[in-house]
């Protein structure tokens, strides 16, 4: 598999400094520092329960940090007004681990939902064209009138991504995009993530513990260990170590 290289830009779209988050007495994030540069795919790796999803939920303002600063497109997420937060969220797409499709709506209505509420100037015809274009981009035009319950896991993931992309975000956050999918569908999702990066010029954070996905989509990899990012760099740089917390990760994924 071809490993991706680092991007050359130094423009930061997300800046996280000294981020702490705990739930009750359980400390999840213990001083996280992380930057996302424009145009890159950053893969965040880590064991289950280490706070990877918590991190991206803080980025979109679904959770608030206990301590620390999270700056997205030059705005500090937890201090801006709700109206500004909604405006910021138009620029940040979030693909959920279980797709989170609205199960009482058809696929067309799922995609129309964010569009008609955020771009009121669009005519019915324009909304319909945008929906069809986006479904074509994820290769699922034929599902337009189906209900989410009629789709497979992989199809639901793609529709979830399409619903996010329809608002043309600058940043994409993928939460476990390949979790629970078969290897062939995983490859398709990996290609989709790369295609989105190239076609829509997005900067992305991909949360995963699937190293094949990390290697295929990540320009840069960051490993969350004990609540902090202790290893960051290219895939090779991160895994070229004998660290007992890192090595089993690689060995399991590549069957050594």
């Amino acid at each position, binding site marked *: 598999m071809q490993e991706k290289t680092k991007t050359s830009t130094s423009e930061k779209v997300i800046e996280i400094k000294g981020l*702490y988050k*705990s739930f*009750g*007495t359980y400390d999840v994030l213990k001083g996280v520092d992380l930057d996302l540069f424009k145009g890159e795919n950053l893969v965040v790796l880590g064991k289950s329960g280490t706070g990877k999803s918590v991190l991206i*939920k803080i980025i*979109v*303002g*679904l959770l*608030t*940090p*206990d*301590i*620390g*600063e999270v700056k997205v497109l030059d705005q500090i997420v*937890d201090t801006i007004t709700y109206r500004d937060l*909604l*405006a910021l*969220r*138009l620029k*940040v*797409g*979030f693909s*959920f*681990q*279980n797709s*989170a*499709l*609205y*199960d009482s709506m058809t696929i067309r209505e799922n995609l129309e*939902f*964010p569009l008609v*509420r*955020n771009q*009121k100037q669009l005519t019915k015809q324009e909304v319909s064209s945008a929906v069809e274009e986006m479904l074509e981009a994820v290769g699922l035009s034929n599902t337009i009138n189906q209900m989410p319950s009629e789709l497979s896991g992989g199809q639901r993931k793609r529709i979830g991504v399409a*619903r*996010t992309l329809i*608002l043309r975000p600058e940043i994409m956050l993928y939460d476990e995009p390949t979790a629970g999918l078969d290897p062939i569908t995983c490859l398709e999702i990996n290609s989709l993530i790369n295609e989105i990066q190239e076609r829509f010029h997005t900067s992305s954070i991909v949360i995963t513990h699937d190293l094949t996905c990390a290697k295929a989509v990540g320009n840069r990899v960051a490993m969350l260990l004990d609540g902090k990012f202790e290893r960051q760099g290219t895939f090779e740089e991160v895994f070229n170590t004998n660290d007992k917390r890192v090595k089993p990760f690689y060995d399991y994924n590549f069957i050594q």
Partner: protein
Amino acid sequence: MATRTERPSRFGRMFLTLYDVFQFIGRFFKEAFLPPYEGKELMKQCYDIGYKSLSLISLTGFITGVVFTKQSRPSLAEFGATSWLPSLVGIALLRTLAPLLTSLIAAGKVGSSIGAELGSMRVTEQIDAMEVSATNPFKFLVSTRVLAATITIPILTFYTAMVGMLGALLNVSLSEGTSAKAFFQSGLESITFLDITASTVKAILFGFTIGMVGCYQGYNSSKGTEGVGKAANSAVVIGMFLIFIEEVVSVQFFGLFRT
């Protein structure tokens, strides 16, 4: 920069919950009456809550009218006052039976359905998905459902009263041979403007309560399938409990205006 917060005590958590409830109600008034409006979703909810409850309400309302008339007859017959049956049934239905019956049925049917629906949407991250797609889920999910319940329960209440009267008419005409015209003349003449006002206010209050409790429990349900069940269950139990409390308070309140 935010500071790290400590977990509050049990007593503190109780006050936080109360604060949360009032904040939720306050947010409803803010979101429901400020644009953008979710008119289409409001109509859909009115249809779901109102129209889809009609068959159940019709059946229970009709049976209540028949049974109440049948049970009241012996007591009135003792005083030779069976001719008062239509007035008695009319007043009882409008003042208490219709609002209470409609609201209790709605608390069971509508409240549980709202609690379960929003609860499962919370658990499957659909509410979070609305949030992150820059859509206000509170406006779309909560405001519309609470408004729809507040609008439709009073309409259903008067419908129940009407169907209950039809049940009573059936019983009275079979037993006493009273004509429909005489029954309604006698039944409606003792109903005052205050009765109608009190009934409307109560039904609005009950509808608001059912919608609000169902939405609060579902919207704030904890993670997991257990949370969904709990949300549906609490929506019914708390909803019914509050309806009875409100009934007692409103009877006392409107009693002040009766001479």
